């Protein structure tokens, strides 16, 4: 019997063993994270995130206060609507002034609440600031909010087990002089593991918890400021 025949078998067995091992490590690491306890560190995590992983937000805000922040995205429907507005010859000047900027949907976006103003930042493919849109107090007072479920990628290719790490979104809809503009607010900051941490599940899960604690608070802070955005 040729010994080479055993190599694929050994690889499969090793693969299965590795998966079992990683799953066990994942469960162990996960069990060590108490999300409710983590939530009590919101203020500290917020400061830490702003000083480290998301320090660009402070730069983009140019010294203005940051009361809360999280990730966001532009729904496909809004991008299509913006395209229609452009194609129609920009009938709605106010919407086009805001909307024509929102043509990118796959890159990172961020929300920052500063006083009465909501700041929406979109980035380009290398993470640099692309557009900065400010929704003032009066636009926020006239806006509506609804729960939009789990944000699924356009392709929808992800493991069922990974769904718990996908952000859940609230959709905020602004009335821009009669036209509606919908944008998504994520319940966590977008986490991309550092390649050097790929095998360090404990570190990954601890970071994910911080990103969630900071991000999920955004809607609560926003609703406290604008009661019209409370869900029925």
């Amino acid at each position, binding site marked *: 019997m040729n010994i080479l025949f055993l190599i694929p078998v050994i690889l499969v067995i090793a693969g299965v063993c590795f998966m079992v091992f990683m799953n066990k490590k994942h469960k162990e690491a996960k069990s060590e994270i108490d999300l409710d306890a983590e939530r009590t560190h919101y203020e500290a995590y917020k400061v830490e995130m702003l000083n480290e992983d998301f320090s660009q937000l402070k730069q983009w805000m140019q010294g203005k206060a940051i009361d809360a922040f999280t990730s966001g995205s532009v729904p496909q429907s809004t991008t299509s609507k913006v395209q229609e507005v452009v194609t129609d010859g920009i009938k709605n000047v106010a919407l086009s002034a805001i909307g024509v900027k929102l043509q990118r949907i796959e890159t990172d976006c961020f929300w920052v609440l500063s006083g009465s103003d909501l700041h929406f930042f979109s980035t380009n493919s290398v993470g640099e600031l692309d557009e900065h849109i400010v929704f003032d107090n*009066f636009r926020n007072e006239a806006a509506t909010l609804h729960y939009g479920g789990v944000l699924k990628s356009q392709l929808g290719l992800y493991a069922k087990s990974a769904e718990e790490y996908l952000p859940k979104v609230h959709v905020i809809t602004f009335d821009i002089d009669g036209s509606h503009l919908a944008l998504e607010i994520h319940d966590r900051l977008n986490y991309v593991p550092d390649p050097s941490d790929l095998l360090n599940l404990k570190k990954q899960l601890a970071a994910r918890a911080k990103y969630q604690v900071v991000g999920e608070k955004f809607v609560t802070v926003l609703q406290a400021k604008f009661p019209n955005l409370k869900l029925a």
Partner: protein
Amino acid sequence: MSLFSKIFNSFKSIRLNTRNVLSGQPLNDVLISSMYAEQQSAYLNSYETGLNRSEVIKLLEQYWEIFSKEEAITVLQDLCDRNHDKNMNIVYDAFDDQENYVQILKSNLPSEENSFNYYLNVYRNLKGVVPELIEQQVITSFSEIRNSKDSGWNYGRGAFLARCCYETGYLTEKELKDYLEKTYQELKEYCSTWKEYTISYIFGRAIWGGSHNSGMIQIANDLLTNEKSPLKNKTYL
């Protein structure tokens, strides 16, 4: 012929009348119209605009809906009155105090929805225009236009329209002179230099008309620096 003369005149910056030339205070009065006049390639130094009658009528009727003396007086008066709108000061106060803009606008502007939204839109326009003008190096900070506001834009248009109304017979020469004297005196309350006047005109146009100010910036530079310009050696109003 009209189109040809317009194209020809557009290549001539600083168009001066060689007859009926004004000097002294009457020249100062008429120079309030210089930004609009330069836009239209009209004379800078006389009551006459040097434009074809058809061009003047088109400007008054199509862009300003002025078809009679009464309508002319209403428009000219409105261009003066809007500088005294106290609600506009509230909008500028709110812009100057971004931390408290909500309270300033809500507490002091008229609560009637249309009226409130009118001033709110001015506030929003300020938010877009001021950073743009700083970027274009028209101003270095908001404080430079805090006092002059859009007075140059309002009085400047009023002064040029008055010249057009004089040419179409809606105003007598005396009425034109009185109006120009009045606009000059009132503008001095807001602008102390001719440079401030040009900045205020550019700012006002940007606030009410949107972006693309490079042409107006060029006109202002030309008026203030061109050797032929009557404004070249003038500093204070």
